[in-house]
């Protein structure tokens, strides 16, 4: 993609096959420039989620390579990569495991050995931004879906990643919480890559779009205006 000098993500001819043998996606090559906001659009089972996991360096592609700021993720550089990358999973229940919301927020900073003051400051800041004061000492699994999502995103953003990956950030979240999450993501100033099957979310948050086909390949990519092409979206099984 044109318009940016530095590539945050570069993928060459990647494919992914699940351990049980089913194909995640295949033959994907793409470049995402620093600061770009990209929506990956596709029907259920089109490989969006596995593409996101591979691009973020969590899953190793079966063919080809992924580079994050020029570095190919491997066992040795895991610290470098994880400091640049934040991943928000679709189901917060997969993601949240600490006894309280406060512990969730502190989880990454503690690993990064921030000082106590720095951690306190960050927890305060992010619980203000995400409006988590009242639930700070509650166990995450007792929260509502929208609250869980906010906690999840806050726990990722607190570590200040340069690239934020989000898998269906607004799935199963309604009304007010959804608007709040969209607002917060809009304020993020870094590279943003998200998957969604909600076109509205993609249009509001992203400048570019990648459309995945039912045979798990890239069908089209370009500016977000791509999503106005109803014929294309019908072929992709989104509409």
């Amino acid at each position, binding site marked *: 993609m044109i318009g940016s000098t530095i590539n945050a993500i570069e993928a060459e001819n990647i494919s992914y096959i699940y351990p*049980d043998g089913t194909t995640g996606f295949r033959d994907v090559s793409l470049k995402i420039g620093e600061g770009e906001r990209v929506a990956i659009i596709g029907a259920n089972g089109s490989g969006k989620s596995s593409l996101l996991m591979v691009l973020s360096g969590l899953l190793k592609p079966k063919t080809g390579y992924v580079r994050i700021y020029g570095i190919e993720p491997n066992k040795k550089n895991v610290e470098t990569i*994880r400091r640049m990358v934040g991943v928000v999973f679709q189901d917060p229940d*997969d993601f949240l495991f600490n006894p309280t919301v406060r512990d969730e927020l502190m989880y990454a900073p503690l690993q990064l050995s921030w000082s106590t003051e720095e951690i306190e400051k960050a927890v305060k800041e992010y619980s203000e931004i995400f409006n988590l004061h009242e639930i700070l000492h509650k166990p995450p699994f007792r929260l509502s879906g929208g609250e869980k999502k906010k906690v999840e995103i806050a726990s990722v953003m607190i570590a200040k990643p340069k690239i934020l990956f989000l898998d269906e950030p607004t799935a199963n979240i309604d009304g007010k919480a959804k608007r709040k999450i969209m607002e917060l993501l809009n304020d993020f100033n870094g590279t943003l890559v998200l998957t969604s099957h909600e076109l509205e979310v993609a249009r509001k948050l992203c400048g570019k779009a990648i459309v995945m086909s039912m045979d798990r390949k890239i069908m089209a990519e370009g500016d977000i205006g791509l999503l106005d092409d109803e014929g294309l979206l019908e072929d992709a099984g989104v509409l």
Partner: protein
Amino acid sequence: MIDARIKLLGTFLLIVLAVSTFDPMKVGVIFVSSLILAAFSRIGIKKVLKRIWLFTLFSFIIVLPLTLSFRVEDLLYVLLFTLRVATSLIAIQVLILSTPFNDIVYAMRGLKFPKGFVSTLWLAYRYIILMFTELMRVMLARESRRMTKGSHMDLWRKGGESLGLFFIRTFERAERVQLAMRARGEKVVAIKGSFTRLDKIYILFMAAVTLWWMAI
């Protein structure tokens, strides 16, 4: 398709015959019979061998040091031991490759295995893939939050915590499934009824193999 009840019993019989003797001829008879079954079951010998060679080699290597005695009977033992293992593996692979697991479950019910056991077995089998993908998501999410390399000990402990989360979710899912089962009911079909001609040929084959095994 051969009745899964007979196949289950036939496979068991073949393996019993194979592992109850060290007579080269007898083991050889069962080995050849298993290969014949593989060839006639549309699976093909090649596919079966591809699945068994690694474990056969493993078993061979385990007993290989016994040949250091340089005695003929020890060498013979090592070869026969490996052949017995290989024969049993072929027999079970033929069963597995030619019989969907639900048929095996129905066959068990047909063979009067306890109902609670069979229906729970069927349920467990159906949920394996789902539970595995769920486990992978939990582990992957946890991995995404790892900022430092950490020691082995760290990995085991944190991995264990992820498993803890996974098991909590397992219990919660079980509660939902139990409710759904109560709402919908569940029944495991049992294979019943008479044998087809193919079944009878299979039984005849097994009887012939057994007689041959006993005769030599």
